[in-house]
């Protein structure tokens, strides 16, 4: 068994993983424009990931092109940046959610106050 064949199993596992994740992510629903942009990015991301799984030397090539020693390092840096972006968007979403909960809770309390005031 040569090296290419040994890697076949992990390649299949990773490809299936990326396909499932992509399918799940495209199903989430929010603003139509946003959703379209996210889907395009997602497809590009999935294609890039698949390409890298099939031909790992692509990452190493890109890393050298960008002045980073190894492909794994480039991947790690990319992951770190992606994680911070994720945190930022979720922090914003969380604050929005908190505001909505506050408004909802207040509206309920004020409605209760109006009702008891009338009776």
């Amino acid at each position: 068994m040569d090296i290419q064949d040994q890697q076949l199993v992990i390649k299949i596992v990773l490809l299936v993983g990326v396909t499932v994740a992509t399918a799940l992510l495209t199903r989430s629903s929010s603003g139509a424009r946003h959703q379209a942009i996210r889907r395009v990015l997602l497809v590009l991301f999935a294609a890039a990931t698949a390409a890298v799984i099939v031909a790992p030397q692509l990452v190493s090539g890109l890393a050298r092109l960008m002045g980073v020693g190894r492909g794994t390092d480039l991947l790690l840096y990319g992951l770190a940046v992606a994680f911070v972006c994720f945190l930022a968007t979720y922090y914003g979403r969380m604050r929005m959610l908190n505001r909505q909960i506050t408004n909802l809770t207040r509206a309920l309390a004020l409605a209760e106050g109006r009702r008891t005031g009338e009776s």
Partner: protein
Amino acid sequence: MPNEDVAILVPVYNEARVVGDVIAGLIDHVGHVVCVDDGSTDSSADAARRAGSIVLRHATNLGQGAALQTAIEHALTLPDMRYLVTFDADGQHQLADALAMVDLARNEDLGVVFGSRFLDERTQAGFLKRLVLKTAVWVTNQSTGMRLTDAHNGLRVIRTDAARGVHLTQNRMAHASEIVLQLGRTGLPWREHPVHVLYTDYSKAKGQSLLNAINILFELTFR
């Protein structure tokens, strides 16, 4: 009754032991007592209702700032209200101080009267508490451009026209600076009035820990 046009606003969170007595001591002296139960898990709401207060309930705990905003919005819908008084539920404020502040607002046509425990020597605060409060005062003054001697003092008199300028978004403790900022922006005349804050064992156990000062600083810095 001379203070029929006054509503006292009391945000409550798990104060069942004391809130009934606090409200019972207020109810006969002003037009309304509006209590916002901020999602208490004890019988605070019942105790407040039994004592004769209007009680609004937050379905979930949001924080004192949010409760205050709800109380203000409800009080503004009550007919013939002229002055709103924010008052802590834990018994550390005195009715006499609140009424003296309302009188001051009436006599000098003020939009806002802030209570300050540092205008006279009645309030006994420990050294560390004093340090934390003074730091909070300094930060608040920096961010609001006002010159107050006390911050995070829950006793305030707000005339209804000034109260319409209050839209608190800081649900937690930092609302105390936010409310000063928003009241300042109304451009209405304001004064400070000395108040006596009673640090009972109960309020000490419940009150802001010194670590909370760090939270307040963070909430104000990273809005």
